């Protein structure tokens, strides 16, 4: 079985780094989809089978939090696991995000081994 992952970040650099880390992770990744903000991500989620969303928080148009809230209200998307990747990783912020149902988070700067460990754990426990 292989998985489709959606990477959401307004920074092209961050998107490219994460996509590259996923591709070299050795995990069974079928395709890495890319979106620049929460709104684009919601459209892609409705048009494609996505097993995992990895998202930044601070983005123009629609933030990561707004996207997660919209997913939670959508019967078709509520079960798609979300991992947050952010430079803003205070305990308070992470507690708030866990309250919204995120599965895990990655702190920037992300390391390939951290990405692999978190994605593997989320996919193995039921994407």
């Amino acid at each position, binding site marked *: 079985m292989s998985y489709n992952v959606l990477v959401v970040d307004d*920074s092209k650099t961050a998107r490219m780094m994460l996509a590259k880390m996923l591709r070299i992770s050795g995990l069974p990744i079928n395709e890495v989809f890319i979106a620049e903000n929460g709104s684009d991500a919601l459209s892609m989620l409705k048009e494609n089978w996505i097993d995992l969303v990895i998202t930044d928080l601070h983005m123009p148009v629609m933030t990561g939090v707004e996207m997660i809230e919209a997913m939670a209200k959508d019967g078709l998307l509520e079960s798609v696991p979300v991992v947050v990747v952010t430079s803003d990783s*205070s305990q308070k912020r992470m507690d708030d995000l866990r309250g919204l149902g995120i599965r895990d988070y990655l702190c920037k*700067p992300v390391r390939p081994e951290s990405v692999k460990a978190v994605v593997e754990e989320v996919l193995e426990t039921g994407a």
Partner: protein
Amino acid sequence: MSDPTNPSLGNNPISSTTLEEILSDVLQEQAFMFAEHGDDQEVDSPSAPFMHARIQFNGPCSGRLGLVFTQNLCSELIINMLGMDSDDLEEEDIADAFKELLNVVCGKFLIAAFGPMLKFDLSIPTVEKIDLDQWLAQKSNQHTTVLMVEDEVVLFELRL
């Protein structure tokens, strides 16, 4: 701007030294670049153009961080971060990588300076090109610290 000596903000000293260490760590980890403290009396003025990135944070303490690199160093940054070929670089990509660097540095700085329990709101970073006169004015600013990265002068600014 709020008072950085407020004891309710934690025990860690909030200083440009903290930021200098974090910038050095992030550059090393993400771009295999090495930073060292610069003696601004000994360095020549580098060649324009320069890129000036800024980010603001608001929370228990408010302030802003700024970074000034030469455009050449920014190009080197993205080449190292993404393993790109220099022929494929576009100005937009260079600015994006520089903003992402500042975003990461700011997040790590806030955790290091104030601890993990306080929540801050970070702005989306901005970047603009500046000329030599603007660079010299920035360098002489009292909030600016000079670093050397890969033998190039880097300026960073911390205002609290």
